[in-house]
């Protein structure tokens, strides 16, 4: 209970809401870095996943990348990337953690893009081809819209993981909410550590909720229609 009071006091201190180590700045750093990682990962993973799903060729590649991604812990990746960054004379407080986050975000987006396209009914694809849609038209007008919910789920998983894991950035001297945890640990300031962890959890939840909204907005209309059919249509008093 004493800890809770300390944490609340920490949040209540106006000094913690301003400056380069203030909460708004750290949240912004965290969001920026996570967003950038997810975007970079998406530009790599989505085209590959869509292409493999559409053509059916290279499925093993998707499988291997996904398994590799699951097997390698982000912390190990980060530690591997730091010497590389140092060798390349890159800023080692930024690039290694971004690289690790990109690699973390790729597997869920890649597998979901692939699986989402594959899950589109083959009869639909055949009907579309039989009507004279080109391969690209089949992908863009049929497969992609129908796979969107699965693809968005992949991005949602990736984004939540990245937001939670970017905390590690502080280890290599980067910014973000991980700073509170890392610095709190270094100075034995438990309230600061707990406040940092709480902020990370809240941001992860907010990310999840935001992607839930995206999922609703991008779901194909016909699928919603199917669900709305379930209760007898037009029944008065159903609402």
């Amino acid at each position: 209970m004493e800890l809770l009071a300390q944490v609340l006091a920490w949040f209540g201190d106006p000094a913690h809401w301003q400056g380069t180590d203030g909460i708004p700045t750290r949240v912004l750093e965290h969001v920026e870095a996570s967003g950038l990682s997810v975007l970079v990962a998406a530009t790599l993973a989505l085209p590959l996943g869509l292409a493999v799903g559409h053509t059916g060729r290279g499925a093993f590649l998707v499988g291997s990348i996904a398994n590799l991604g699951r097997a390698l812990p982000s912390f190990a990746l980060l530690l591997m990337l730091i010497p590389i960054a140092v060798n390349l004379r890159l800023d080692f407080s930024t690039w290694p953690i971004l690289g690790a986050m990109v690699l973390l975000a790729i597997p869920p987006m890649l597998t979901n893009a692939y699986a989402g396209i594959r899950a589109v009914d083959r009869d639909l694809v055949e009907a579309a081809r039989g009507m004279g849609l080109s391969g690209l038209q089949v992908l863009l007008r049929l497969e992609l819209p129908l796979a969107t919910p699965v693809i968005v789920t992949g991005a949602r998983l990736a984004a939540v993981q990245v937001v939670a894991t970017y905390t590690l950035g502080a280890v290599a001297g980067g910014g973000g909410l991980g700073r509170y945890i890392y610095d709190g640990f270094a100075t034995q300031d438990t309230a600061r550590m707990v406040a940092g962890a709480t902020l990370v959890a809240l941001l992860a939840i907010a990310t999840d909720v935001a992607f839930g909204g995206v999922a609703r907005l991008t779901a194909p209309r016909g699928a919603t229609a199917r669900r709305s059919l379930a209760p007898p249509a037009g029944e008065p008093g159903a609402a």
Partner: protein
Amino acid sequence: MAENTLRGRALSATDAGTSPRARRAATVALEHVSKRFGDRADGQLAVDDLDLFVPAGATCVLVGPSGCGKTTTLRMVNRLIEPSGGRILIDGAPIAGRDPTELRRGIGYVIQQVGLFPHQTIAENVEVVPRLLGWPAARRRERVEELLRLVGLDPARHLRRYPAELSGGERQRVGVARALAADPPLLLMDEPFGAVDPIVRARLQEELLRLQRELGKTILFVTHDIDEAIRMGDLVAVMRQGGTLAQFAPPAELLARPASDFVARFVGTDRALKRLTLRRVGELTPASVPLAVAGEPVGAGRARAGSGAPGRLLLVDREGHAVGWLDARGLPDDRPADVAAAQPPTPLLQPETTLRDALSLLLDAAGSPGIVVDGAGRPMGLVTVEAITAALQDVDGDAGPDTRQAPPGGPSDPSARRDAPGAMDGDRGRPAAGTPLPGG
């Protein structure tokens, strides 16, 4: 055979896009077409040296047991599958060199699973090909409404709906509308009515026949149901395991002269009855019927019947509608023909009734001759079981007339045809409803 007047003219997407009514139908020729799927270890052919010629405007049904290569054959025509040997010509031009997507935009395609895009409205689904062909929005919109009406759907109700909000039968109709959207001269239909119940299927079949009378497309139609093949086809190609052609003939010939035991078994032991489904009462010459006007003296009817003094007179009212059978034996000439003493005028047959339905009705009526009535219910003559069996004999002689030709006496109206016996059932023992009885 109706040789195509447009033969040799290649169909192209631009044609289909700019002058939808310029060509109504295409010819299709398969020459020594074979297909071997590479991954088959036993080296068996899916389609083996198939030769078919479908004249413009004809419906050719591919029928055969499961796995005999029907779908493979169909999909070679729109190049979803490439043949391993032989060639396919549409309107005399080989399709092998054509751009597949452009080729397919000129061919309607309907599959059993329908394959409507679930995320698009009915309107968007129907206009897929017109959109690919670059039709302007106003023209697409107009075409969609026209097509929905053509397949019996109300545009106002269905345009904005999604496929999941339609019944199976409605979805099949939309599938047909979508295939017809750019008015292609050729339709490929792979078990289009396979996924609906028998009643809906019968109605969809009837509607496709009606549509086909209007549109005169060339149709390649796949089914494994021999009854559907006989009903829908101008030509029926019976295929057997291994992708060979067992017989290629009009339905009547297939039934009268199956080329092999396999075909005979495939069409079934009730061949003779099936042949009767191909012919209609209107094609028979009905025997003349002794008429008596209700209320007039019996003698007048006898006199009209002439010599032979028949035992039974068919009573008609003053408008000429059949109202009953009167047993006139022993009745004096001056006795008025009394409707109350008459038996109901059954069985009633329409010119559109198939001989099979007619035979069934006659057997039900224990040998009483059937009264052929015109659309207004006025008797045209009598048909007996013997006349029907005799008709079966002359089917043997020639291939028989085309089933789908409307019989004399009006275009065949399936609902009227089916409803007629039903209406009588509902009124058994009473003259048909709507027939006014003089003084009754």
